[in-house]
């Protein structure tokens, strides 16, 4: 069976995407970059859904539907995230995540 037709290769790709996303999430200071990393993570999830839709069928189209949901949610998330970033930029004149630490104990 070719690699393109095996579930585990897709899961592996998704895992790699997810890990890269987490890496970016943890290492970057720029809020936009963090948002970008989040997109990667979401993508890894939707990739998983679609892969399971194909190889481990529960319902004929359920995985795709969820992938659509994820895309929609990603849009909403970016929407809110970007406006928050803009707000922060306006307030602090910076989009560095380390600057936003008013809630420290």
């Amino acid at each position, binding site marked *: 069976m070719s690699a393109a037709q095996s579930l585990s290769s897709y899961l592996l790709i998704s895992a790699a995407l997810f890990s890269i996303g987490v890496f970016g999430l943890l290492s970057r200071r720029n809020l936009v970059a963090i948002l970008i990393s989040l997109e990667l993570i979401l993508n890894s999830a939707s990739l998983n859904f679609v892969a399971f839709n194909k190889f481990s069928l529960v319902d004929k189209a359920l995985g795709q539907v969820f992938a659509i949901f994820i895309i929609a949610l990603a849009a909403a998330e970016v929407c809110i995230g970007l406006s928050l970033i803009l707000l922060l930029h306006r307030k602090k004149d910076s989009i560095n*995540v380390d600057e936003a*630490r008013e*809630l*420290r*104990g």
Partner: protein
Amino acid sequence: MTDLHLFWVIQLAPLLAFLLIQVLPKTINKVAPAIGMAFSLTAALASLNLSFAHSQGAGLPVEFSRQWLVVADYAVWPNIPVPHYTLSVGFLLDPLNLLMITLVTTISFFVQLFSFYYMNEDPSRPRYFGFLSFFSFSMTGLVLSNNLLQTFLFWELVGLTSYLLIGFWFEKKSAATAARKAFVINRLADLGFYLGIILLFLLFGTLGFATLKADALRNVLGHGTLTLIGLLIFCGVMGKSAQFPFHVWLPDAMEGPTPVSALIHSATMVAAGVFLLARAFDLFSASHTTLLVILSIGAITALMSATLAAIQRDIKRILAYSTVSQLGLMVMAIGAGSAESGMFHLSTHAYFKSLLFLTSGAFIHRFHTNDIWEIADRGGKKDAVALGCLAFGLLSLSGVPPFAGFFSKDLILEVLKHHGGIFFYGVAVLVSFLTAYYSFRLFFVIALSKIGHEVRAHHESLTLKISRALPLFSLAALSLITGFTGHAFHLNMELLITTVILVVAGGALAYSQFKDPAAAEAALRGNQGFIFKILERKFFMDDAYDFLVKKVGLALGRWLNAFDRAVINSLMVNQTSFSVMRLGRVVSRLQNGLLQDYLAWAVGIGILIVFCFL
């Protein structure tokens, strides 16, 4: 009236007086002395009635008893003679306390009468007469009670009134301190008493005087236990009767009004210890070791305080030390096994010593000083009534026949000679000699001094004069008569001669030293001898107590307080709370506001947990 009614009258009349004086509004507090005297006269008459009804011990003993408190209805202690532990209250009258109750109520009446004169100008007279009545109540209760615990109850109440009356002039710091000292030292001694009672109760099961018989005690308890209990209870006696080493409170107690000293600190309360010795005599005589200890303590006390009395300048202190010394003699007599002789001396001593104290009160009230030289200087010998009574009392004290003191002291000497051994007899003889010496010294200083700055007696109303003279004369008469009431006394020629020789020798020595009191005073001031120093410091007893209280007791308290604050409060409690707060501060450092740090923690820990399940 039946006996029981009389008991209630004797017991409750003074209490009623106390309550009435407290309850009555301040505006009519002039009647307080009248109330006190009326009720104490009632009690005195009732007790006289009682003693006539039972003269020569007819129909005695009489006991009324009632259950007070069931401590346990099973035997707490194994091998106990009684199946249940019950405390009772009641009256017990036997010849012993018939004598005592008459003595207490009569002297109490005389003292109240004299107090009317003495406290005439004091604004807080109601309080004084209230306390005096309360004292009479407690003292009669002590005398009439039929068991040790009830005795202890009134014993403590007596101590309380003593405290209140010594501190009657509480604005004076010395009076307040002396009151506290008296109470605390009595308390210390009473701990032994208390413990003794509890042990006796636990091991013997009953505390009634009627059941405390030597044979019964020996049957149940071993010699060691008996000695222990006896000594513990004797501890209380030592406190109340001011025996060595608890005698230190009595001289200080002279801070109280003088009639109080006459009533409480010479005749009745301090005699309560001796009375208890006689009352529970079987408890002590059940063990000969106890008796020996009692004898020795009495001897030490008698000798020590007689020497101290010989150097005092304060008339009340002379009398106080003399009281301690005489009490020591009584204790010796009982320690030698003769409760009768001790009690006999107690009763004669009560009359002549209260006479002496009232006399000194008469001097002090008129001349406003306690110092015998100053009394003499201000015209002490011009006060014929007081001087005469003083002479009466002192003659009786030093044991000149035919005064009361002679008979009782002779009896004690005889007892000691036959039962106490030569050593204790010698001590007693020495004490008698010293007694004669300091008595005559006191008399000569007042009688032979030249008058310097005479203080004239201001005009006194007839009532005051009567209330001054009547008690003095009555007590003087009593101190003459009571000697002959001692039953079964046969005149022992040998002892008579000894006594007379002792008195004459003491008198002569005193005369040789004090025929010129002014010169003697100068000599006294100049005396820097070693022995004199020791005497002046009262054998360092006060210093020893000071050391114990301040350097040991209070230091321990200070240390424990520091421990409480530093270790328990700071270290254990506050530090616990501080470390909780510190921990909070440390943990709150995790919350640094850095979003990615939180994420790193969350994801990292999450992964680790996942790894655990893989």
